[in-house]
């Protein structure tokens, strides 16, 4: 599909920005080829490490700017885990905080011009979501044994309805990793594609008279969409994390 001819339409294709390319030339992407995804994931990890290494180095009572950002992020996720999943879920706080940091940083870094948004690929978010799904299911069975299955047997419903509800509950349980990963990737991809569609309309003033109207409007639209994308980048990381907490709560306390 990438080879499709689109020379007559927009100046560039809005999906071109999501292409995975090898960093050092060549055009085959193998298992171990360093690509732009590798590069931007490395930058993400370096940024997170930098924030927390420099943020916690001073350990000042009156925090510096970096330290307050690190403390704010820590406190925000800590409170979220405690409120949503309960006190006994705090054991899994490091994992959830890692997820949150990785997603929020790669979303935000993806907004830089010329950057690559790693979370816009279902391959990346799918791994994150599957890891959550497998971890949570394993925790559920380890903590509760076979009584974890009572998650699917809604004991507050009338007895006749319970088998029907069980089927629905099982389907919705297995759809979780799908919706969990596609929500993040879809939001990121859709937002960036919309920005690129407007960006492709922006140079129209060079080719036709309609551009006098279209170009300022599309530049305005890019600005507005960019503002929205900054919010979406944070909210999607928040939603991913809070849903992880909800799933964790279900695993720790499966009884309705």
């Amino acid at each position, binding site marked *: *599909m990438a080879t499709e001819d689109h020379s007559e339409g927009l100046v560039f294709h809005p999906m071109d920005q999501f292409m995975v390319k090898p960093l050092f030339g060549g055009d085959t992407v193998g298992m171990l080829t360093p690509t732009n995804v590798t590069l931007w994931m490395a930058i993400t990890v370096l940024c997170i490490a930098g924030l927390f290494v420099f943020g916690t180095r001073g350990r000042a009572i009156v925090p510096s700017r970096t330290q307050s950002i690190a403390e704010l992020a820590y406190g925000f996720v800590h409170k979220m885990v405690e*409120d*949503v999943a309960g006190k006994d879920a705090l054991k899994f706080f490091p994992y959830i905080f890692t997820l949150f940091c990785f997603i929020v940083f790669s979303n935000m870094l993806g907004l830089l011009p010329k950057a690559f948004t790693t979370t816009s690929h279902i391959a990346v978010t799918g791994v994150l979501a599957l890891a959550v799904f497998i971890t949570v299911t394993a925790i559920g069975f380890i903590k509760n044994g076979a009584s974890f299955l009572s998650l699917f047997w809604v004991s507050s419903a009338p007895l006749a309805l319970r088998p029907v509800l069980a089927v629905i509950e099982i389907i919705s349980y297995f759809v979780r990793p799908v*919706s969990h990963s596609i*929500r993040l990737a*879809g939001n990121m991809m859709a937002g960036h594609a919309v920005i690129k569609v407007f960006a492709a309309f922006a140079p129209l003033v060079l080719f036709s008279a309609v551009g006098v109207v279209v170009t300022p409007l599309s530049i305005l639209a890019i600005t507005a969409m960019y503002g929205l994308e900054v919010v979406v980048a944070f*909210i999607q990381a928040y*939603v991913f994390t*809070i*849903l992880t907490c909800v799933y964790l709560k279900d695993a720790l306390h499966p009884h309705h």
Partner: protein
Amino acid sequence: MELAAAAALGKYIGVGLSCLGMGGAAMGVGNVAANYLSGALRNPSAAASQTATLFIGMAFAEALGIFSFLVALLLMFAV
């Protein structure tokens, strides 16, 4: 009409139709936000504790719209 051309036509019509699902998700998310706002204005002191529920509700409503997006993507790139 050739078979391949007809298949391509059907594919693009299907992609366009699957975008209608976004309208449903829009109504769902709007409904969640509207009800949250009307509840929050009636009892502002309880609003702050419910923002997490708001986002979870929005995420669930949005997920179904994203399934339609997924169908569109599958039709475009996989079929």
